[in-house]
């Protein structure tokens, strides 16, 4: 318990405190009026307004597109379902930069739609909205569909036997049971789109800017750290509020539902309606998820002899001090280090949270652990930038800074994956070990560890994928001579020229493949036993 608390104290609470001080304090005095000053600026108000409405629109659109998908994946049985379910999950672990790039290749200048019909969407908000749907499709399908698949169909049958029509049975039995899951998914999607950075950064151009992008712009282009700090605080408060509502929703959803094995509730589609629904969902998945990724790969191969890939190995372009391909090595090294840290910290925290006699303090810590997941990566990166660059803790020159930030983002995933499994371990097994003479540490090693080894691997895989694609925090603190993959992609996209564009596509493809492969390996692990919430 002490180590996770210290970790979060130093690498989360302190940077946040530093941001607060930077934003509201000057010459040793607090100026709370600065908040209203900043919020009064018309361009900032515009950013706030855009952030909220694009998040609302993205969330609504995602629900509209993904809820039929949730039903199809939960209740219909069709060949290739398992593979397809894994495929729709891929976007969730894909780096935002890759998603942005893929949509750029689809709807941007010189993109597929541009070539075919002369349609460009990258200057409109539609590109952002579509990319958000792409991203969060899996969130809805997983959270809502996961529960839907486990609802006992006999509940509905019981209602039918008592005289309810098919629709009425669904409305009175299934819908209320799904309600909390839908609410939770909605809030999650809203949170993710509210704090969207990479996608908006790449697709938004100069026109569209969310709070997150604005913080980055204020920091790295205008160098107005005070304004950036105030904006971060606004963002922090908003995210805290969303998370609080989410926590309450989840707690309410833990009501007693009759759950059964998901494998037994699905059946083959029957009737024209179900077939049409299935076709519609498959079509959506193909156009919305597979097409952008396919176009991305195609664009990266658009030069003869893998020209873009070969260009990655030379440092002639002048964008970087090193050949861009070195970003692959950097990313892997950083991600491995971040995974190790995240698994250590997250594992310890989960173990501490599992203990039965958890008091108010520990439960509060549980909620606190989730903060970095929602509190945008940009906050983390910005906090690191201004808090950890001076004594007593000067890590500016240290390579460990990047893995630390990535680990902070990865820890919630580890905790969320481990906690349900650890809680499922029968407490009396631990007691049996204790009575036989095992110290608490021995109990953990002898009883818990063997039972959660698989969950630990899954958690590590998630942390790895998240670290690999982490962009928002890394872009603040990665050093120019050691870029990570997402940072390199963003930088290449920022430069004009066919070659840079192609290289960005090639690097994105590499990143996508690495992420997709690690996710599919996880799916293989997970299908053996259902664990975790993600």
């Amino acid at each position, binding site marked *: 318990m002490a180590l996770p608390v210290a970790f979060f104290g130093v690498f989360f609470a302190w940077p946040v405190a530093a941001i607060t001080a930077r934003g509201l304090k000057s010459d040793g005095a607090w100026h709370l009026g600065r908040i209203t000053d900043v919020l009064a600026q018309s361009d900032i108000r515009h950013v706030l307004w855009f952030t909220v409405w694009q998040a609302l629109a993205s969330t609504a659109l995602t629900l509209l597109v993904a809820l039929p998908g949730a039903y199809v994946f939960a209740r219909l049985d069709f060949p290739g379902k398992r593979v397809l379910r894994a495929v729709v999950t891929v976007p969730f672990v894909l780096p935002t930069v890759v998603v942005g790039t893929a949509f750029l290749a689809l709807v941007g200048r010189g993109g597929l739609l541009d070539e075919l019909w002369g349609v460009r969407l990258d200057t409109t908000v539609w590109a952002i909205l579509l990319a958000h749907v792409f991203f969060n499709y899996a969130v809805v399908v997983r959270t809502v569909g996961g529960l839907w698949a486990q609802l006992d169909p006999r509940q509905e049958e019981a209602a039918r036997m008592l005289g309810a029509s098919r629709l009425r049975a669904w409305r009175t039995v299934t819908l209320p049971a799904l309600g909390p899951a839908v609410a939770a998914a909605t809030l999650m999607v809203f949170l993710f789109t509210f704090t969207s950075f990479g996608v908006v950064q790449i697709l938004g151009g100069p026109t569209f800017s969310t709070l997150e992008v604005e913080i980055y712009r204020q920091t790295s282009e205008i160098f107005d750290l005070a304004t950036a700090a105030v904006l971060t605080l606004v963002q922090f408060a908003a995210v805290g509020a969303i998370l609080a509502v989410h926590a309450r929703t989840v707690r309410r959803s833990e009501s007693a539902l009759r759950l059964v094995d998901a494998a037994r509730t699905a059946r083959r589609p029957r009737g024209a309606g179900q077939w049409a629904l299935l076709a519609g969902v498959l079509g959506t998945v193909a156009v919305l998820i597979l097409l952008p990724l396919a176009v991305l790969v195609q664009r990266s191969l658009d030069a003869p002899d893998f020209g873009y890939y070969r260009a990655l190995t030379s440092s002639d372009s002048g964008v970087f001090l090193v050949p861009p391909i070195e970003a692959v090595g950097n990313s892997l090294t950083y991600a491995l280090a971040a995974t190790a840290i995240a698994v250590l910290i997250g594992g310890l925290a989960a173990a501490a949270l599992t203990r039965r006699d958890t008091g108010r303090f520990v439960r509060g810590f549980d909620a606190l652990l989730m903060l970095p997941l929602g509190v945008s990566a940009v906050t983390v990166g910005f906090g690191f930038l201004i808090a950890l660059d001076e004594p007593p803790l000067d890590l500016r020159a240290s390579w460990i800074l990047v893995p630390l930030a990535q680990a902070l983002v990865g820890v919630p995933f580890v905790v969320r994956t481990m906690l349900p499994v650890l809680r499922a371990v*029968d407490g*009396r*097994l631990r*007691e*049996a*070990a*204790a*009575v*036989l*003479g*095992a*110290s*608490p540490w*021995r*109990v953990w090693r*002898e*009883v818990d560890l*063997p*039972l959660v080894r698989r969950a630990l691997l899954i958690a590590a895989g998630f942390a790895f994928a998240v670290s690999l694609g982490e962009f928002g925090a890394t872009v603040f603190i990665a050093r120019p001579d050691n870029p990570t993959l997402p940072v390199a992609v963003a930088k290449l996209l920022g430069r004009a020229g066919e070659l840079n564009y192609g290289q960005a596509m090639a690097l994105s493809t590499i990143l996508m493949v690495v992420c997709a492969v690690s996710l599919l390996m996880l799916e293989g692990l997970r299908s053996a036993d259902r664990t975790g919430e993600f």
Partner: protein
Amino acid sequence: MLLSLAGATVRFGGRAVLDAVDLDVAEHQVVCVLGPSGSGKSTLLRAVAGLQPLDGGRVVLDGRDQTGVPAHRREVGLMFQDHQLFPQRDVGGNVAFGLRMRGASRAEQEARVGELLDLVGLPGAARRAVAALSGGEQQRVALARALAPRPRLLMLDEPLGQLDRSLRERLVVELRELFGRLGTTVLAVTHDQGEAFALADRVVVMRDGRIAQSGTPLEVWQRPADAFVARFLGFDNVVEATVAGEAADTPWGKVAVGEGAPQGTRTLLVRPAGVRLVPVDEGLPCTVTARAFKGTHVTVHLQPRDAPRLEAACALRTAPETGETVGVRFDSSDVVVLD
């Protein structure tokens, strides 16, 4: 005394689950705590094991106060109700666990595992997976695992609870014989009186976190301390009575009681064997409402007019049919005046 509890108290949210319990267990003694579910008997074991902190009182083992001593340093064995074998280890790995925790050498572990598996009647089972064991076999492995580190006190929580009847009856005899041979000190809890009486040197009956009665099985069986204990032991012929001299005034009429019975308003118990059936005009007239075949005898339920029901044990051949009317007399040797 090997184990002494003095004023042991555990509260769950204001309710005392263990209420100032005093209990002594001497070395080589087998003590069985008997009580309905919720009477606090499992909490008693957990408190002795160190899994449940006390809110008051003390647990003393071998003369040493155990307050603040964690479970893994108390050197007591506990066999859990549903065994709690470690699913990821085989039989040998389970039995050797406690030895490993105490740093025994590999050779030592192997020898002891073999010895114990022989003892519990599972020779050569060390490499078997625990998931493949039957209920009775799991029970034996759990016993071997608890015994392996030679605990100074072995505690059993509903040791035979989940097994079927014939297996239970066989194992209870085996356990009794095993504990006698090894000289193990045992504290067991069960809700099954048959199990308790068959296993124990001393029976402790618990009710609502307190000890209702303590004594040898014979003492408890012959003289239940109060109506609760009597009813818990399965005696249903329990009524309020006014005792004067050698007769008691009961709803069933005058009942003769033994010499020296406590006087005044008392609770009176008539064992089913002491309810004699006689011709209608020679005793209390009753209607037979039900009869249940019990193998060696028949239990007959009798409804007197204006009085509580009676239960009688009858020989197979002489038991009346349902609906018949019979007379009842009471045999004073099976009438007990409770304190």
